[in-house]
């Protein structure tokens, strides 16, 4: 997604208010943007707290700042700057966190972002965007350039199956209609699971959520749960502050309660060992093969 992200921003570089701040990251990825933006591309050094507050000042001064780093270096290191300087003032700063979930794999726990939207969604006027596919990126970047509120964009590696032509980016998307269990996915993880379901021949009703806090669930989604009486939510994020929690609340408010609710989430570091993104997903039961097994159990 990162190269597409860069390419999409290059297309918007003519906007004189657009300024891009990076926390000393972007080697072999952001060079085209740097070359295009000139003095509006700023390497802010390894100083994320300053970078985020500077972005707030820039936005207050009428600029349109995008702030880029490895995800936790933004939302964890600079949380108070995000809260006080950006969100309290409803400023249109776009925070871009690379490596959502276990995206940085064996690089280790300091680089993982498994509680990012859980800590950001509660902040005033903050909205979180979770593109799932490469095909989401260009349109989403165009939309974000125009928003009037703080935003966090969680980037990962697209796992878009070759056979899939997703509908345009939206907060709720109905990905696969099916007569079986109701499934909610988010982020790039969705690609692999959709592919595994496609190959398994299981008939599941699969939905994709790409924006938080979640909008009111579509009527068709509620109807799906009433019919299937089974809801599975899969996300590369810990349970606290998760999409699953937010969704459970929405469902209770709507008076809809499936008999069976299964929530697959990031679980931290189960064995205490490190590995690829796939290794960590497997430890958490998030791998597409494990999800298919879970759904087969439900169908049986």
């Amino acid at each position, binding site marked *: 997604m990162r190269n597409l992200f860069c390419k999409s921003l290059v297309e918007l570089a003519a906007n004189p208010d657009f300024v891009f701040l990076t926390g000393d990251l972007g080697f072999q990825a952001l060079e085209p943007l740097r070359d295009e933006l000139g003095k509006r591309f700023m390497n802010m*050094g390894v*100083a994320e*707290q300053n970078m985020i507050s500077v*972005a707030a000042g820039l936005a207050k001064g009428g600029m349109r700042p995008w702030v880029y780093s490895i995800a936790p270096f933004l939302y964890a290191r600079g949380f108070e700057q995000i809260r006080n300087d950006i969100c309290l003032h409803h400023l249109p700063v776009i925070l871009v966190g690379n490596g959502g979930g276990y995206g940085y794999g064996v690089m280790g726990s300091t680089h993982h972002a498994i509680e990012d939207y859980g800590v950001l969604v509660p902040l005033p006027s903050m909205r979180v965007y979770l593109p799932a596919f490469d095909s989401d990126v260009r349109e989403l970047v165009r939309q974000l350039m125009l928003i009037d509120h703080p935003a966090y964009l969680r980037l990962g590696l697209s796992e878009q199956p070759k056979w899939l032509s997703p509908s345009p980016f939206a907060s709720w998307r109905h990905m696969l209609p099916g007569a079986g269990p109701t499934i909610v996915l988010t982020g790039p993880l969705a690609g692999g699971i959709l592919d595994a379901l496609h190959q398994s021949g299981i008939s599941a009703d699969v939905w994709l959520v790409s924006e938080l806090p979640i909008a009111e669930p579509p009527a068709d989604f509620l109807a799906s749960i009433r019919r299937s009486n089974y809801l599975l939510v899969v996300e590369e994020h810990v349970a606290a502050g998760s999409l699953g929690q937010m969704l459970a609340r929405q469902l209770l408010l709507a008076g809809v309660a499936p008999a069976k609710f299964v929530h697959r989430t990031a679980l931290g570091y189960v064995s205490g060992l490190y590995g690829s993104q796939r290794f960590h997903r497997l430890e958490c039961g998030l791998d597409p093969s494990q999800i298919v097994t879970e759904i087969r159990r439900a169908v049986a």
Partner: protein
Amino acid sequence: MHLTPELLLKARLRLLKMHYESGVGHIGGKLSCLEILMVLYHEVLEPNDIFILSKGHSAGSLYITLWSLGLLTDDDLRTFHMDGTRLSGHPPFQGIPAIPFATGSLGHGLSLAAGLALAKKLKGLRGRLFCLTSDGEWNEGSNWEALIFTRQQNLNVTTIVDLNGLQGFGRTRDIANLEPLADKFKAFGVRTSEVDGHDLEAITAAVGEDIDGPKVVIAKTQKGHGVSFMEDQFEWHYLPLSREAYRLAVEQVSANA
């Protein structure tokens, strides 16, 4: 409106009255920076300039200064610290157009000022940025990040340090000693001067001096300045004014004017 000794006295008395009526503390650090704020707003700031109060716990002095300019009213000041006020204990994020950013957690203001200065630079707009920090606030690493950034980008940001030597729970030299502080700023390549923070002319000259790029003015001040029993006394960082303390403070401030 230029800053006269009479106007400063009026502001100091109004500050004491506001604190007495509201029954809240933080008066010591407000008295240490009142001259700085009054000089800034009456002598230095031009229409395109922006000021950020990074030491948000001195919001009361900022409110009094805005009152002295007619930007807040007596009715506003009477609500200070009360339920339903716009005048919270630290600068609010909305409700007072002259205050661009909520501050209070230390170590934010200088970065915010840098961002505003950078926006002006990128947009080709006129105007300078001024930021008042406390001295204890330089315990915060983010301030040093901001200082390095203003130097690197040669931003037109003037930082004023209210050097009163006392912080939240003790003397600055006993907690994270940075003295001599001026040497630290100079080591970062930032133009640095030191002035008596209660000398109106000295502050005006140092703060108002136009240079291209960042500068720091260390204003040597006294916590509780102008009230003998508060001067340099740590507890007046927090204590509210009793009726007797208020009477004595007004008497001394008036006599010293």
